[in-house]
């Protein structure tokens, strides 16, 4: 699908960057003039994905998180969040609601469930010791149906 606009960001896995990452993604998506609900859903899903990188992928260390966001033709929003951390041994199990490897930090184990509920499509690719890439897509409810340039 044709890319109408794109941003790429990379930032260290510090928890203070959770707010920055979701705000940046929301500000970029807002260029396509989506609904308030779309923006809210994107902010929540991005927050979950970035928090996973910080809490799980780079546990006890700091690494780089790469975020690529795109506005595609027909008002479709795409976002990729990539880390080079520990990886997930069983992606299917990790995506089950209430699954967590960090209960002591009061993680609810709902990160992937929130991403899947708030976005239209979630794809997770992971390799142990190499890292994890989460790609999410959402159809934006734009006033012009996504035909205008963002």
């Amino acid at each position: 699908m044709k890319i109408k606009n794109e941003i790429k960001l990379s930032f260290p896995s510090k928890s203070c960057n959770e707010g920055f990452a979701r705000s940046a993604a929301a500000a970029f998506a807002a260029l396509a003039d989506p609904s308030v609900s779309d923006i809210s859903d994107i902010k929540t899903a991005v927050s979950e994905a970035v928090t996973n990188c910080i809490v799980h992928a780079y546990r006890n260390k700091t690494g780089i998180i790469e975020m690529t966001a795109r506005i595609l033709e027909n008002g479709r929003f795409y976002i990729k969040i990539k880390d080079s951390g520990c990886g997930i041994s069983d992606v299917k199990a990790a995506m089950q609601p209430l699954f967590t490897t960090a209960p002591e930090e009061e993680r609810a184990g709902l990160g992937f469930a929130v991403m899947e509920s708030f976005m239209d499509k979630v794809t997770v690719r992971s390799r142990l010791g190499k890292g994890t890439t989460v790609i999410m897509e959402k159809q934006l409810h734009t006033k012009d149906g996504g035909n205008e340039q963002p």
Partner: protein
Amino acid sequence: MQAVIEAEEKALTVYLSGEIDHHSAVEIRSDIDLAIERYKPERLILDFGEVTFMDSSGIGLVMGRCKIMKLIDGTVEIANASTAIKKVMRLSGLEMIVKI
């Protein structure tokens, strides 16, 4: 993120404001837990009226406080949660254990 805590007879009300995420939840939960330990309330009321954003870290925050309140035979109530916040709460099934 801020938490203003008011203790009345048997009830502790926490007025939360700003954004609740993994980064902010750590500080908030320690403030609330200190107040629970001090006042040992029968009811803990978490007021989300001024909360502008919450991800699943907020669910962990509420569930953790439920566990603590259960230990002292107390209850937890959620007040003034916005539609967006309720959406995250419903996904977790939180309303089965907490009054929203």
